[in-house]
């Protein structure tokens, strides 16, 4: 294998210590960055390192985080899902609208079926018809946006009796001192982590994402696996819609606009490779939390709301750069 060492060689970075950190960073870098962040923010703000504040952040990231869990599985399987943002709009509008018409439980059931159906369409197009996932889900993004508007007639929807309904449970209640959205987010994270690392299904997802041809040659039904990842992704969107609808008790038609790329930012920040075949939902949880703590910490430190986006820009690139650089063994490429 000596011949395959690629461009490693001349003009090597002469910092062996940095390299060692780099290699460890490949696995633990994101956790390290996370801890550094927490410490930095704690130093600059007294209120940052408090239980209340931490639980606020968890609650804030729960919507993006829950969707990011599903998207992580799609990405590990070697695909992208850009339709989750408009799917979230659709799902939230539907569950809120139906709540007053047929009651919370039937509303949830029908919304679940409708959302999963959209996931199935994604899954059929990408899995069974083998179309490029970026373009398919881009098209679905637009189509679902339209569907949402057709469904609502362009009107915003809301729940009239916000105090009486048990639907408030998903977005507003606490269990054992922890917010229900946080329970949903972390609960799904644990379940997905176990599924991905301990079951045959999880292994299949990694195999298909790592090399779909080899997976098929090993008797893994690739199309079904890809299909299932999109169904899972749509399920997480449904869960996020419950949190969002219940928290706001209403919904705008474009409430999920732009979520697809923020979610992806969390997934990437966690260290899941867009190439597929590697990654983990735990990393994604950390990636999403970093996004949340950046926002929270900067606000506490008195910066404007939008400053977090600038920091996010820098952090995403630094995080992936660290990853790429440690695999390469040098900071910069030598490409001419």
């Amino acid at each position, binding site marked *: 294998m000596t011949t395959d060492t690629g461009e490693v060689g001349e003009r090597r970075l002469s910092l062996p210590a940095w390299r060692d950190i780099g290699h460890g960073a490949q696995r633990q870098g994101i956790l390290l960055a996370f801890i550094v962040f927490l410490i930095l923010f704690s130093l600059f703000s007294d209120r940052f390192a408090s239980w209340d504040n931490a639980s606020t952040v968890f609650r804030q990231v729960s919507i993006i985080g829950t969707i990011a869990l599903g998207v992580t599985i799609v990405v590990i399987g070697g695909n992208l899902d850009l339709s989750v943002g408009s799917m979230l709009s659709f799902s939230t509008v539907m569950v809120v609208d139906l709540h007053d018409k047929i009651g919370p439980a039937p509303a949830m059931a029908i919304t679940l079926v409708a959302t999963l159906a959209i996931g199935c369409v994604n899954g059929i197009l990408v899995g069974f018809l083998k179309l490029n996932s970026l373009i398919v889900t881009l*098209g679905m993004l637009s189509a679902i946006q339209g569907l949402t508007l057709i469904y609502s007639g362009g009107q915003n929807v809301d729940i009239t009796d916000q105090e009486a309904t048990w639907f408030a449970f998903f977005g507003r209640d606490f269990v054992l001192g922890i917010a229900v959205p946080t329970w949903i987010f972390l609960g799904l994270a644990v379940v997905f982590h176990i599924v991905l690392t301990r079951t045959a299904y999880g292994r299949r997802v990694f195999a298909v994402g790592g090399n779909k041809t080899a997976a098929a040659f090993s008797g893994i039904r690739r199309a079904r696996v890809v299909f299932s990842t999109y169904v899972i992704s749509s399920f997480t969107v449904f869960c996020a819609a419950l949190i969002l609808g219940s928290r706001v008790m209403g919904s705008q038609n474009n409430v999920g606009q732009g979520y697809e790329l923020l979610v992806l930012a969390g997934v990437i920040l966690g260290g899941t490779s867009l190439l597929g075949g590697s990654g983990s939902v735990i990393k994604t949880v950390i990636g999403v939390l970093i996004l949340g703590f950046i926002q929270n910490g900067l606000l506490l430190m008195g910066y404007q709301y939008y400053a977090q986006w600038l920091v996010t820009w820098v952090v995403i690139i630094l995080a992936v750069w660290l990853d790429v650089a440690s695999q390469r063994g040098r900071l910069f490429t030598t490409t001419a």
Partner: protein
Amino acid sequence: MTKTLATLQNLRRFTVIPPIWLFTLACAIFFSLMTDNFAEIGNLKNILQQTSTIGLIALGMTVVMINGNIDLSVGAVVALAASLAVGLQSEIGTLPAVFVGLGAGIGLGFVNGMIVWKTGVDAFIVTLGAMIGVRGLVFLYTQEQSFFAMDFAYSDFGMSQFAGLPTLAWVFLGFTVLMHWLMTSTVHGRNAYAVGGNRDAALNAGIRVGRHMVVNFMIVGFFAALAGITLSTQMGASTPNLGREYELWTITAVVLGGTKLAGGAGSIVGTLGGVLAIGILRNGMNLMQVPAFYVLVILGAILIIVLFIDRQVNRAGVEEVKI
């Protein structure tokens, strides 16, 4: 003489009519038959003016995508350039403000390109970060305010006509011709295909791939900024949310036009077809009084159908293993 002839022949060699034009024409014919006013000169001018914004960005995006990269930050750059060009008018004058706007676009393109080149991080991720960050810059600069153009010449420009066509349509068509020439007849354009088609081969052949990519990111940055400025001349104002989701619309138009996401294949002529297809659909359905909601569904469906047909046509049939 022979030299011009050869050049013409070569323009033709690379100007295979992409299949999207069939669809574009079919749409045009359909709407001409179904509505009274689609085929009117005034309406056709409208379409050109309406599509010029996405169209300009799509020209730059085509180059970057043929080159094997992607730029998700164009929508945010639209807002930044528009805000700067409108917001700085009263302080430094209209023309300097426009140049600052364009400069910001080119500069951000340079930053994106340098990061992609030097760090080796995928362009999708780099520009996704930039999309978020630049939008933050816009909000910080504008303090969430919309700006209105104080210079009436600025907003007049957006509505003006030249030789019977809207000036903005001229701008779009002029740059389309220029970019077509760039991609088919210049060494830089041909190298873009080489780098996108086989990066290692291009490197081994001594093409300076990194520099080349940076130039292309600057080109798309320029076009995004220009689109932002022309859009704000039409509105006579800029808003911090300007250009949201433009990256998605642009990619849709470019992909409809036949440019491959993997790079190495595509054309400006195809992109023009894709841009016009979207413009004609929107305009025609509007004339038929189909609510805008349905247009979104239909556009999404068409994108997927085009992808499906493309796959069926290009598939080697029985040669492919079923997996």
